[in-house]
């Protein structure tokens, strides 16, 4: 069906969101049309004509009950339909994966850190890229989101993914891209004069393309491009994983 101006979706849960989106398009669209048509009909039928007297009525209980109950039902159903997607995307623990990247936002960059060979963060062989992220397609990716200064927002339109990065917390998000390509990663939360233009690129590779890229760029040989930024990262280092449960940062 038509995409209603939505950008192409290339993530697994993006479909769920789009489906809801279209459902609401229909609900609200039909409601709007009903309301406007009725209104116009009334305006034409009942415009002031000499000699006609307005109908003298103070309301109609059955009617009022109907148009209270029907929207309530629609909305309740809509709520129930929204729950699964929400719990899949944000509430439940993300699907297990061994692919973890740490994204630390700062005015006005995305610092993307890979654990390196040992698979641990905070060790010498970490690699930090600036405004650039490489992931394999069809693989669940865990993003450990942090911020050094103000609130930023990790937004990937084609993934239908958005999550604020809050200083003093680490928030775990996940996505699974289904189509190799190069996707823009804008910052969606006002974070200062550089907010506009704070963006990175997510490169989604096929499995073996990714292996090639990793071999060339994530091996200990290649020197960390943005090592300076990793120092500045220290303050948030000791934050316990508050996951997405919004727990307070302990220190």
């Amino acid at each position, binding site marked *: 069906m038509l995409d209603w101006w939505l950008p192409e979706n290339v993530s697994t849960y993006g479909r769920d969101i789009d489906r809801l989106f279209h459902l609401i398009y229909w609900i609200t669209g039909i409601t709007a049309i009903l309301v406007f048509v009725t209104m116009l009909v009334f305006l034409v039928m009942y415009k002031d004509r000499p000699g006609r007297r307005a109908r003298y009525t103070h309301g109609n209980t059955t009617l009022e009950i109907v148009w209270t109950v029907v929207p309530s039902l629609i909305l309740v159903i809509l709520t129930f339909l929204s729950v699964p997607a929400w719990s899949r995307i944000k509430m439940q623990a993300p699907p297990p994966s061994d692919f973890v990247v740490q994204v630390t936002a700062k005015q006005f960059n995305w610092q993307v850190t890979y654990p390196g060979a040992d698979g641990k963060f905070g060790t010498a062989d970490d690699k930090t890229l600036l405004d650039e992220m490489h992931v394999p397609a069809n693989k669940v990716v865990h993003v450990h989101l942090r911020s050094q200064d103000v609130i930023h927002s990790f937004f990937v339109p084609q993934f239908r993914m958005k999550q604020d990065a809050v200083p003093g917390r680490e928030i775990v998000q996940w996505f699974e891209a289904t189509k190799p390509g190069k996707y823009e990663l804008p910052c969606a939360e006002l974070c200062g004069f550089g907010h506009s233009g704070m963006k990175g690129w997510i490169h989604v590779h096929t499995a073996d393309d990714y292996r090639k890229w990793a071999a060339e760029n994530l091996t200990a040989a290649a020197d960390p491009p943005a090592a300076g930024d990793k120092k500045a990262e220290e303050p948030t280092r000791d934050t316990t994983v508050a996951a997405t449960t919004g727990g*307070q*940062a*302990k*220190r």
Partner: protein
Amino acid sequence: MSPVVLEAPPLVRRANGRGVPPRPPTGGGDDDGREPAPRRPRLDNVRLAMMFFLGAETMFFAGLVSAFLVLRLAAPLWPPPLQPRLPVAATGLNTLVLLTSSVAMIAAMRARRGRNRAGLVRRLGLTALLGALFLAVQGYEWAQLLHYGLTLSSGAYGATFYTLIGIHAAHVLGALAWVGVTLGLAARGRFLDGPAGPLRACAIYWHFVVALWPVLYVAVYLA
């Protein structure tokens, strides 16, 4: 210019809310259809307005206290290590001082009902005195704490402490000024047989700032 306060229509005004509560409104009440009759408000304007004013004040402090609790509960250690402890005992006594001032205020109101001007003035004076004493002790404590190195900028601990207690102190100060003015008017014989609205409003507000304190004391000092 003296505030022109227009009361509800004739027959409505009662001697200011003393004695038996007025009958519930008729006509103007919610009984449609019945012949309109003059309404009698349940509460006179001033007391009603004070009620809503306190409602707003409550929301203001609710904002502060809940914010404090959020930070307090998030902190692993409270008070944080190497930070001076708050003087719980001394402040406890100070709390009693403030509570007594409320008693004095009640007595003052009783004196007014007894048409006893001297008593009214004396007891209002006592109220103000106790309030001032409370502030003085608080001020002394602050001086001590600052001296021990607890400042506004020493983390959430200092920040919340000084903000909450400071803002309450500011309210006490305001109430104190109000009592002062009221006292002056009382000394000139207002309220005794004239309308006592302003006096009552002042009393209500005083009781409010006093009642607020134990809450803050428990939240900030004890909890």
